[in-house]
């Protein structure tokens, strides 16, 4: 380990993230009483002990440290406040675990991970539990009370079963299960009656298994559902272990529990024997998916069950196909004919494909490049003797190992095992490299694995740029230029996202500069709106041609600006104005009138009034609206429309009289139909009056007069 700690680990609060994640240390906190002047120090290290950041701790008393699934550091304070820092001890945000916790203080806290994300569980001074299952979507849950609980439980753990998070706690010889609503007493099956009081418990990485340690040194191991016992062991050590964690490999039947005392490490499982190690110094256990990491001042080790493939190959005097193939290859290199003998032996059993697969698989579990190489060489050698062995698994493994070896380098310090890497996926690994600001390595991995640009390189460059904008010591121009130099027109780069980050960092000018590089004007709009550059947003939206986007900005402006300024803004943007008119036509007819009024569009105002006359029920209302239209048409110098509308008013009034006089529907017949109806009904005088009043052309009048019925009244009139 690089870190060169002066303190003992036991004097520090320690938290190490799973998947070869970083380590956080809060030093001096225990010695606070001795030297009140000295502030505690919060440090973060890579798994290889390289210092990432160090800050003096200025906030309240910290009870517990923990890492989230996205490698943010959680500092849980005594008052229930949880502060979130990133890997580099930069403060991100904080939240509180609620009033109850604030009043009664935090006694103990645990950080846990489920499919919902990272959660926090708190035991308060009033011996109550509070839970939040996902800190990114904070919903506090206060667990029910444990009846008659007077002192804190001796040990407790968070379980996740069937997507429900529950708490298991031990008080003396009793076990209690707390779910959302109730508290129940439980007894593990096959528990020895003389086992004694529970002192320590451990839940496995996948929440499937549970281990309980009692004050007689007895260890019960079973399923976390408490429905089945797997095995038990009597350690005859009566003091509780400092740490107890499960050590198992996915899909393996061999399950074991690792316990650490001050100077002793014990591995117990389904066997009467146990394995014991001596610990030279203070150690800290980190449970992993497929084993346990053991941290100390000087070393960082990984304890795991040897995978089957490795056992088969490296077991002494193993005759497994993989072992023989490895031997054959070694002999081949020595140019010995034994190579052929070994090979023949495998081939006789028709196990050559298995031998190759075994070697490839085993290579994955090795950490030493030399061993990896010899196994891969053996696989490659064996492959030559097989017809059409699919090359993918071999190639894939070579690639994966190169990536793994690169990140395991102590400078990088992410000691992932092959199993963990596969579970984590390459995408998440790249994210983690980006989090550590290891951009060049991330990009080289993308290029090496030939990931698509959008998925790989572009994404990383974008992250780099987002980091770059936070460098406050450089001027806006410099940063914008540097970013554009590096990113150029790389496909999939979203300049607007980078600009958004710049804006969040309080650099609006830089954000605008960066937005200029964004080729998609549609993408510029939301940020510009957020930055209250609405007018710029409007012209960008119009530039994009996307009318929907223009609408969005227009409606945004409408809420943001006062009516006068809003109208003025639209006035300068004809495209936006006509779209807004369309909107008003459907939704706000009155506003439409104001818009026309503002640009003295009397023709449209006239049309507007004609339109509204048709929604008036009473004749007076209609005439009124039409009269307004006449006025507007005159103002618009549209004599024809004005006269025609005056005629319409005249006709409406006349029709009402006719309707009253003859008790027959005349309203809304056209002039033509009115005249024909009058003629058909024998009111020739009236008809003639209309002919004169409305100056009906002779030609048409003659036709009507002569045939009388050519203009058959519209069906509307003849109901």
């Amino acid at each position, binding site marked *: 380990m690089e870190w060169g700690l002066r303190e003992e680990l036991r004097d520090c609060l320690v938290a190490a993230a799973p998947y070869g994640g970083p380590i956080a240390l809060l030093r001096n906190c225990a010695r606070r009483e001795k030297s009140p002047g000295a502030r505690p120090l919060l440090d973060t290290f890579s798994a290889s002990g390289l210092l990432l950041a160090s800050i003096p701790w200025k906030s309240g008393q910290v009870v517990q440290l923990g890492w989230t699934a996205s490698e943010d550091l959680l500092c849980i304070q005594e008052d229930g406040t949880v502060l979130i820092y990133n890997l580099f001890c930069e403060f991100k945000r904080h939240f509180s675990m609620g009033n109850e916790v604030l009043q009664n203080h935090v006694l103990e806290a645990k950080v846990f991970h489920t499919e919902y994300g990272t959660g926090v569980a708190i035991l308060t001074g009033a011996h109550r539990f509070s839970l939040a299952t996902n800190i990114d979507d904070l919903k506090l849950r206060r667990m029910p009370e444990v009846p008659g609980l007077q002192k804190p439980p001796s040990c407790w753990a968070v379980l996740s079963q069937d997507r429900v998070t529950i708490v298991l706690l031990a008080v003396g010889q009793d076990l209690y299960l707390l779910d959302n609503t109730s508290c129940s007493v439980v007894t593990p099956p096959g528990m020895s009656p003389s086992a004694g009081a529970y002192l320590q418990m451990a839940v496995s990485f996948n929440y499937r298994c549970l281990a309980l340690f009692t004050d007689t040194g007895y260890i019960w191991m079973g399923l976390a559902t408490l429905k089945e016992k797997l095995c038990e062991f009597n350690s005859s050590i009566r003091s509780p272990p400092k740490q107890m964690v499960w050590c198992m490999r996915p899909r393996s039947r061999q399950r074991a529990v690792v316990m650490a005392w001050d100077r002793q490490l014990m591995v117990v499982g389904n066997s009467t024997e146990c394995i014991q190690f001596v610990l030279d110094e203070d150690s800290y256990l980190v449970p992993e998916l497929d084993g346990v990491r053991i941290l100390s001042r000087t070393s960082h080790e990984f304890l795991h069950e040897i995978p089957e493939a490795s056992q088969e190959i490296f077991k002494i005097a193993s005759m497994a196909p993989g072992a023989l193939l490895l031997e054959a290859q070694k002999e081949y290199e020595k140019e010995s004919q034994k190579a052929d003998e070994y090979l023949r032996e495998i081939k006789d059993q028709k196990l050559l494909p298995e031998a190759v697969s075994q070697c490839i698989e085993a290579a994955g579990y090795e950490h030493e490049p030399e061993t990896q190489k010899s196994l891969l060489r053996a696989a490659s050698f064996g492959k030559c003797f097989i017809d059409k062995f699919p090359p993918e698994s071999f190639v894939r493994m070579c690639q994966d190992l190169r990536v793994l070896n690169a990140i395991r380098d102590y400078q990088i310090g992410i000691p992932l095992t092959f199993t963990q890497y596969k579970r984590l996926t390459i995408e998440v690994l790249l994210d983690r490299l980006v989090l550590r600001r290891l951009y060049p390595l991330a990009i080289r991995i993308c290029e090496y694995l030939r990931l698509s640009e959008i998925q790989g390189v572009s994404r990383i460059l974008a992250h780099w740029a987002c980091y770059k904008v936070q460098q406050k010591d450089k001027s806006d121009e410099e940063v914008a230029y540097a970013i554009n130099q590096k990113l150029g027109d790389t496909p999939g780069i979203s300049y607007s996202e980078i600009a958004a980050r710049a804006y969040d960092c309080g650099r609006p000018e830089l954000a605008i500069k960066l937005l200029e590089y964004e080729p998609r004007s549609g993408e510029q709009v939301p940020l510009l709106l957020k930055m209250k550059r609405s007018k710029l947003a409007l012209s960008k939206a119009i530039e994009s*041609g996307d009318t929907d986007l223009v609408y969005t900005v227009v409606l945004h402006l409408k809420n943001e600006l006062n009516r006068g300024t809003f109208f003025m803004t639209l006035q300068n943007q004809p495209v936006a104005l006509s779209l807004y008119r369309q909107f008003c036509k459907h939704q706000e007819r009155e506003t439409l009138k104001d818009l026309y009024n503002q640009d003295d569009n009397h023709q449209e105002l006239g049309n507007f009034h004609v339109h509204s006359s048709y929604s008036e029920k009473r004749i007076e209302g209609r005439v009124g609206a039409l009269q307004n239209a006449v006025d507007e048409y005159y103002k618009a110098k549209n004599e024809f429309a004005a006269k025609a509308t005056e005629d319409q008013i005249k006709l409406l009034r006349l029709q009402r009289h006719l309707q009253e006089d003859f008790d027959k529907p005349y309203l809304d017949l056209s002039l033509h139909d009115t005249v024909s109806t009058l003629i058909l009904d024998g009111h020739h005088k009236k008809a003639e009056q209309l002919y004169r009043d409305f100056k009906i052309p002779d030609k048409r009048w003659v036709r009507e007069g002569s045939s009388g019925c050519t203009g058959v009244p519209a069906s509307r009139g003849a109901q």
Partner: protein
Amino acid sequence: MAAHLSSGRVNLTALREEHEVEKMFTLKPGRLPQADVKNIIFFVRPKLELMDIIADNVLREDRGRSPQRDFHILFVPRRSLLCEQWLKEQGVLGSFIHREQYSLDLIPFDGDLLSMESESAFKECYLESDQTSLYHAAKGLMTLQALYGTIPQIFGKGECARHVANMMIRMKREFPGSQNSIFPVFDTLLLLDRNVDLLTPLATQLTYEGLIDEIYGIQNTYVKLPPEKFAPKKQGEGGKDLPTEPKKLQLNSAEELYAEIRDKNFNAVGSVLSKKAKIISAAFEERHHAKTVGEIKQFVSQLPHMQAARSSLANHTSIAELIKDITTSEDFFDNLTVEQEFMSGIDTDKVNNYIEDCIAQKHQLIKILRLVCLQSVCNSGLKQKVLDHYKREILQTYGYEHILTLNNLEKAGLLKPQTSGRNNYPTIRKTLRLWMDDVNEQNPNDISYVYSGYAPLSVRLAQLLARPGWRSIEEVLKMLPGPHFEERQQLPTGLQKKRQHGENRVTLVFFLGGVTYAEIAALRFLSQMEDGGTEYVIATTKLINGTTWIKSLMEKLEPPLA
């Protein structure tokens, strides 16, 4: 699952079968119809009017039923923030579990025909300055280029064409990485504004397909015909039960006979039909000559094809009879005569007697509007006195409510006073040879056959672009509205075409604002010309004819019920 459609133009049969769609409804306000389904999907155009209906549907739904239904909304062709915002204000946005888009911009109608089926595109672009449909057109063209390669040359004429081309160039720049590596299918894209050629849709189409559309209206390749002519003629029944349901037929080039006659002048259809009739009956006669088992077997194997041909022939004979009844009527003839006079430039400057008579007899208003607009366009606008006379006649006869419709037509430039005092139309007509006196309807040698004399301006522009190029008609292009332009899109050297001798160029002609069947026929005629050298594929915002087009511009004002 139940699907809900606002415009049932999408072929959902496949979807229906794959996902067990129970029922399909058209969108209307009120409660949703009963259906025992869990999921309801709304397929809608992103329009606010439709959002109101959907909100109404959803709000009424929630109250009644106990097993809650799940709602989903699928916008065609694009999701709209505006609509979602609107749904949010109505308080129903949260009811939708999925909000997605179905990016269907261009719908294939035939082997060489794509349409966006956006009815209101012309009105929105030219009356309301709402260019949403142009944005969709540009997006559709980008999709087309993603599938069929970057189109190296873009020509265009008109404001909207310019706008679409600009958006295409911009969109291409927005995705610099997506270098298209597909060998281009199209050599040229020609974008044409409908308002460059307002004349053509106003004239009555005289091709077979054009006439079917003019008279019965083709909707989404289907036509509904009066049933009488299609009664099954069986002995003994004596035609007692005439079917009352209209006969519905699908019309596209998959039908061999229809492909042959659809684009012919109607006057040339009769002879083809009778020739076909002879061939088919001769083919059926062959069974008497079939002697050996082998011959009979061969005959039988051809039978389904022959029967299909016979029923196709029967259908089209019936349609042709129906059309003939109308085209031989006196009024059709008079109407056509007036149209042709206008188009050939006779008496376009004074009030036309026939139009006056039609108004006096209160013929269909749309017919009147088509004629008056045609006269106006063929005269580069009417004298104020003439225009006012027509307008007064229309308002007095059909009602004053049509004042807004007339106003719309004026705004669209279909009806206008002659301002400059100069009539450009004769120059345009002569230069572009829009009127051909010696038209051959049976064996055409020029596109003018589709209107029996008038060569559609739009198609002439396409034809002249291919040969000899627009440079020869600069003067006329300047008289037509909007800019004309040429853009080039760079292709990587590997994709540049090395033309084989005699290989045809392929041009995509995109009509912004609609295209008629007669124009399509004219372009197909050009594709088939032996020495043409250019093949055409047609895309449009909507398939139109004069009637549907004018209708889309009319303002529907209903007097309140007293």
